[in-house]
């Protein structure tokens, strides 16, 4: 099931991850024992209906949240049970995030939004170079309110990759965009994955996007329902929805 022809090493390893939220008097089981590995440099698309636990899993792997039980390892570091400051360090040094609603800081320009991440990184790109990678060299000094949705999301991608992270976590990156713009954003993500060999996870409920992944992980009811390896990957431009 986890056989990949290139025989890459697993940089993430999750075993029996569970997550229980307490909502008032009700306990919500968001994850019910997830086993999963992510390999160096691969692009994984996670599919699932809302409530399947995919965002929870992404948040836990990205160090934004902690599992209730189970084990999570990133390279040599055990993330399950890590302290808040260890998780902060992990996020700071290794992870880039892209969110559905971009989450740019409205009072900062595109360049400055990227600088927010590079300011605290160890070996970042120049913000201008990061923005060039996503094709926004012309809009460095625009504020978020002066950019289209797709442009904002590409700024968000530039911000995520500018620190040269090992992992790029994208939570519904095209969820708020029309298909044409969405495809341009996916192209940017695919380019980063290819050129920088950044391990990339894309969460979506859009089946079509799965076609661009090395592997497609399907989540259902808090468990991994199925993992599918794409023998033939489609380029984003070939995707239609």
């Amino acid at each position, binding site marked *: 099931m986890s056989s990949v022809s290139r025989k890459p090493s697993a940089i993430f390893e999750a075993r029996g991850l569970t997550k229980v939220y307490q909502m008032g008097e009700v306990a919500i089981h968001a994850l019910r024992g997830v086993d999963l590995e992510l390999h160096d440099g691969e692009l994984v698309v996670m599919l699932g209906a809302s409530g399947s636990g995919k965002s929870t899993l992404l*948040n836990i792997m*990205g160090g*934004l*949240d902690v599992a209730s039980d189970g084990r999570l390892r990133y390279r040599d570091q055990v993330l399950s049970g890590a302290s*808040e*400051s260890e998780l*902060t*360090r*992990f*996020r*700071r*040094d290794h*992870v*880039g*995030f892209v*969110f559905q*609603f971009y*989450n740019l*800081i409205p*009072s*900062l320009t595109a360049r*400055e*939004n990227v*600088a*927010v*991440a590079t*300011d*605290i990184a160890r070996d970042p790109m120049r913000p201008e170079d990061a923005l060039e990678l996503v094709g926004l060299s012309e809009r460095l000094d625009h504020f978020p309110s002066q950019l289209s949705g797709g442009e904002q999301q590409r700024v968000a991608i530039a*911000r995520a990759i500018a620190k040269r992270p090992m992992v790029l976590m994208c939570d519904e990156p095209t969820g708020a965009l029309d298909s044409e713009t969405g495809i341009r954003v996916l192209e940017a993500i695919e380019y980063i994955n290819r050129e920088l060999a950044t391990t990339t996870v894309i969460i979506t409920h859009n089946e079509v996007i799965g076609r661009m992944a090395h592997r497609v992980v399907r989540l259902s009811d808090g468990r991994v329902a199925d993992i599918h390896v794409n023998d033939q990957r489609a380029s984003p431009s070939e995707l239609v929805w």
Partner: protein
Amino acid sequence: MTALNRKLWRDLAGLKGQVAAIAVVIAAGVMTLMIAVTSLDAIRLSMERFYASHQLAEIWATVTRAPEALAERLGEIPGIDRIETRVVAPIRLEVADYADPIRGQILSIPDGRQPALNRLALRAGSPPESGRADQVVVSEPFAQAHDLRPGDELRVIIRGRFERLRISGIALSPEFIYQVGPNDLLPDYARYAVLWMNRRALGNAFGLDGAFNSVLASLQAGARSEQVIEHMDRILAPYGGIGAHGRDDLMSHRMLSEEIAQLKIMAVVLPGVFLAVSGFLLSVLMGRIVQTQRQQIAVLKAFGYRNRELAGHYAGLTALIVAVGVVLGIGLGLWAGEAIATLYAQYFRFPETVTRLQPRVVVLAVAVSALAAGFGTFRAVARAVRLPPAEAMRPPAPENFRQGWIGRSRLGRSLAQTTRMVLRNLDRHRFKSAMTLLGIALSASLLVLGSFQFNAVQHMIDLQYRKVLRMDTHLSFIEPTSRRVLTELSALPGVQHVEGYRQVPVRLVNGHLSERNAIVGLPEHPRLRGLIDGDGQPIAVPADGLLMTRFLAEQLNLRAGDPVTVEIREGSRRHVEVRLAGLVDEPLGLSAYMRIERLNALMREGPAVSGAWLMSDAQARPELYERLWEAPRVAAIGLIAEAEDGLRNYMDDTVLTMMAVLLVLAGSITFALVYNNARIAFAERVRELATLRVLGFSRTQVGWVLVGEILLLTLLAIPVGWLFGTLFAWILSLAFSMDMFRIPFHIDHQTYAFAATGVLLASALSVILIARRLRDLDMVTALKGVE
């Protein structure tokens, strides 16, 4: 500059209206703190420096006549460090081209040298040459009032004889920093003079050759002044000693101490109120910023920003607002401090005033405002930092509303949908609504307080001059005189009514408490000198027993009916016991009163008077004064109208200037608070309001959701503000109870109306400013933007 710092500046710029409002409140706090502390420092340090450098005595004693040889015996009293004997006498004098009578005091200094105690600080010229009998040194404020210089001439009446004296020098004395006449509350530099003359010449003039009538002493470190005073009194009693006293009974020192006490109250109360309000405003603002920036905080955390970096960021925002306020406040404080220092220089005369801004004051101002801001913002910043990044990424869930009384009651159901929204919002956010209400109420209370001061001071002066001092001229005689003099006085031109009084200096004692004061003897129903109760109604002087100013009785811990020991300090020193028959509520000054016949009997004398009060025809007054001036028995002529003007000027200068500043500040705080609150309410509701607009509600209806909330809170806050204001006014009237004056606790309807109007105006102005935003509300953007 890091991107985070850029964000800080841009956030600040985006909030400039609110930042300015809060900064003004902080500035008000810092300014009042600076004024109070710099004035306090200036007075205390200048006083201490002057006392030390010019050897102010620690004990004063007065005798009728004691031989110089007695000084040696006094010097042997254990605990005494130095003794200085002198001659002190009341005088009257004339200055060329000045018509009004001038009275004063002349003191001796040793021939050819400075005294060991109470040394003079010479401001111009030199001390009288040794052996000269025609040279004097005059006090600087008197010299300035008449533009006198060394070499100018004065005409002085010494023991009824005119003497021409030449001014050799101009000086200040640590004994007369606050220079007032014996019966006055306020300095009148033009009409009251202090002069110094060679000891031999002055002794000769007053028949005190080789003798003294006043003695000063300083104490050795650790000596107990009560013991020394007792010892001195025993030695001086045979020479007409009427009891030695310490600095606490020196008028100048007493006024300085009262001023210092007053400034201490001010240094705590006013900045406290302003900085508490600014802390409150900051907490509301920062709470709101953290709420709207939940997602930004989450993103920053997702990218690995540490908690302390985020805490630093938001604390930095607060720090910048505080910095703006502090800088503004220090600037205003320096500017106002200069003005206040000039003002104090009119009343307190120091050779050098320490007005330099103490770094300590700035540090204190920064520390106190930072503390207030810290308290205000701690919760919001802590909440920002605690936010789990994953949770913050999701928009907050709809708040949990429940069907309350509004939905259930018939009244509630009859309300318009928008009005229900207003009520539900207030009901749902009870804590926040309560805090806002409290804030508006506090600013209303400041308006009550400021207006109370204005009216109470006017009321106090009116009471004093309409009900208490009903005479227009106050005469005091050189020594107790037969009542027959009153007949002579009533025959003078323009005199309509004459009333004689007897005044005896005493020490009033109750157990270990004692106060030096005077008993004034009056007829049963004095026509020219009213004694009033708390309601301003006249009180008759009882046939037996003593009446006393309420504040004085409180100082002595006495109640009506209690026995009081009276130590007579005129003529022979005797102790008598008198019953306290009742209390008098006069707003200015302190005194004790008794039926004049009883006082004469107590003094074992015939029907004598110490002075008289006159009611006269204004037209005839110049002639009357000329005649009085020539009367040798008249020691002093007090013009009541002049004194009233002086008092009103003093109050205008000090209390009312302060209160005007307070009132302006209270007004700006009210506006800052209401406006801030309205802005925040608008920002919180913008999506809701846009939704209503989309659903087809009119602008007015939508506006009502916001305005209704502001209006309702303001209306509810007004009575609460009245209550707080009344309480503050009461506390202030207690705090401002002192020897010189007591502000009566008297609040009229206008004060309440004024406070309500002020708050409503501020609300109206805020509503107008918010209405502009509401008009420009872009429905689409408001709805699209994801919070």
